[in-house]
């Protein structure tokens, strides 16, 4: 049994007021614990960037009727997957206007708005939010157990029996605790994004939506030889357009991130969507993409790790989710911390209710189910050969080349496969991996 120190400033210190940290703070505060929520930016969300879509369903458990107050730009009612070859594009669209009404599905939102809103809920629930404060180290007792944090404020040490590290993808606290076995660049991608301003009615017309209906487009191909993908999301009067680029490939390719975005914008399938738009903000952030294969140990004596800091980010091709995993893991961490405090055991074992909850919920079950997908999607064949192959097949199927008779689909597939340099066995193997990988 561990006895928490009685010189505590709070029961729980949460580092980082992003979606994981705010949900951890709400959960712990709601369980009656005193919480300090530390944010290094001038306001929550000021350091945070993503593509643009959040799936907030998990907030049912923390913020009742969240959709009435959440700073949503548009509700996604159309999901498109776009496969780009050099000049061609195959689009697969799905539309569901029902997603634009409760209980909703995905929403576009600006992170500085969304994260600030969520942190305000943490404050309303009783957490003490401290902004403009960078945590510089962990405080430990003589047995090495985490007992608080040092900050860059004068006399800035803060003590608590439990620290929840929600300090984002770089996760210096988890690394300082030795919870990350290794930091391999190939586990990460760089996301770069332009926020492009256009009048709302222009966006509505170009994307075929009305009111606060939004569109989510994931793009395979078009990233200039760098493994990754592109995205386009509609906000009310801006379009978020960006690319996600595998770090070692980016560095090896000798092509800079903004050049890749600039080329993507000039693709004939994309340029009509964004023509005339003004760059309102350029932004960049790193994404943990390797899922289970890079996840750290999430529990130590006196400490839990959640959100991007725990690499809880699902980058599985057609599913690109992170904020929901952050919110859920934060919530479970906050609950587990409160439970451990009630039992008066904040050792790693006392806090293990956290990993139990992650295992039982979608957080780790989705990651386990889709474990192989991120590798497949970022593999060289899928990235560099399949877009041209798929586009070539569809182009020839739809091309009417009279007086030449139609060649037949099987022949087209065979010829285009050879033209793209894809072996039949490789195609079958990837198809099989895909079928199994997507569960």
């Amino acid at each position: 049994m561990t006895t928490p120190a009685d010189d505590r400033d709070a029961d729980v210190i949460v580092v980082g007021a992003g979606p994981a940290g705010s949900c951890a703070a709400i959960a712990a505060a709601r369980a009656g614990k005193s919480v300090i929520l530390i944010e290094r930016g001038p306001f929550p969300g000021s350091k945070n960037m993503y593509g643009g879509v959040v799936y907030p369903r998990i907030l049912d458990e923390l913020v009742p009727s969240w959709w009435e107050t959440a700073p949503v730009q548009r509700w996604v009612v159309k999901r498109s997957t776009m496969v780009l070859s050099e000049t061609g594009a195959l689009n697969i669209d799905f539309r569901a206007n029902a997603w634009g009404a409760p209980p909703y599905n995905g929403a576009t939102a600006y992170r500085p708005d969304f994260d600030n809103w969520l942190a305000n809920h943490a404050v309303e629930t009783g957490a003490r939010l401290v902004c403009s404060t960078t945590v510089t180290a962990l405080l430990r007792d003589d047995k090495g157990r985490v007992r608080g944090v040092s900050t860059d404020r004068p006399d800035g040490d803060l003590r608590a029996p439990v620290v929840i590290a929600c300090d984002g993808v770089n996760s210096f606290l988890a690394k300082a605790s030795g919870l990350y076995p290794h930091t391999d660049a190939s586990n990460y991608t760089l996301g770069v994004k332009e926020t492009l301003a256009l009048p709302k009615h222009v966006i509505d017309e170009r994307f075929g939506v009305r009111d606060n209906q939004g569109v989510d487009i994931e793009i395979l191909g078009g990233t200039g030889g760098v493994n990754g993908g592109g995205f386009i999301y509609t906000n009310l009067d801006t379009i978020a357009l960006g690319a996600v680029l595998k770090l070692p490939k980016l560095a090896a390719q000798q092509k800079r991130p903004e050049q890749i975005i600039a080329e993507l914008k000039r693709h004939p399938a994309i340029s009509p969507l964004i023509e005339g738009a003004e760059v309102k903000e350029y932004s960049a952030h790193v994404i943990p993409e390797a899922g289970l294969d890079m996840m750290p140990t999430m529990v130590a004596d006196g400490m839990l790790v959640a959100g991007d800091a725990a690499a809880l980010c699902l980058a599985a091709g057609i599913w690109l989710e992170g904020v929901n995993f952050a919110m859920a893991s934060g919530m479970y961490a906050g609950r587990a911390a409160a439970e451990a405090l009630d039992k008066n055991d904040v050792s790693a074992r006392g806090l293990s209710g956290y990993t139990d909850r992650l295992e039982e919920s979608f957080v780790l079950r989705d990651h386990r189910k889709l474990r192989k997908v991120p590798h497949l999607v970022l593999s060289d064949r899928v990235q560099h050969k399949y877009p041209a192959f798929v586009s070539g097949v569809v182009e020839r199927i739809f091309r009417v080349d009279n007086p030449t008779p139609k060649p037949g689909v099987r022949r087209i597939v065979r010829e285009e496969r050879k033209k793209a340099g894809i072996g039949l066995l490789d195609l079958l193997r990837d198809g099989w991996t895909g079928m199994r990988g997507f569960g």
Partner: protein
Amino acid sequence: MSPTARIERDNAWPEISFEERIGTAEFRIHERAHIIVDGDSCRGCSTRECVVACPANLFVPTSDGGILFNYENCFECGTCYLVCNKEGAITWTYPEGGYGIVFHRT
């Protein structure tokens, strides 16, 4: 412009300069550099991943084989130290609380 001119890459509008691009983001600059680059390590580096990958283009090769580095317009993304293959060449911490990149609220 004739309709056939747009079959390939669309060059109908000019691309903004890198300075204009980075100028759209807000950086609150602290006097302390939060990234330290060890010039000696860089001089022996032939690959220079940071020069290509940094989205803020903060690493510039110099004629004497070193790296000129500027921390001020940093997105704090971490790309540079992740791609760097020289142990200890890039020392990376977060800037002082309240400083650095501030993404826009509506």
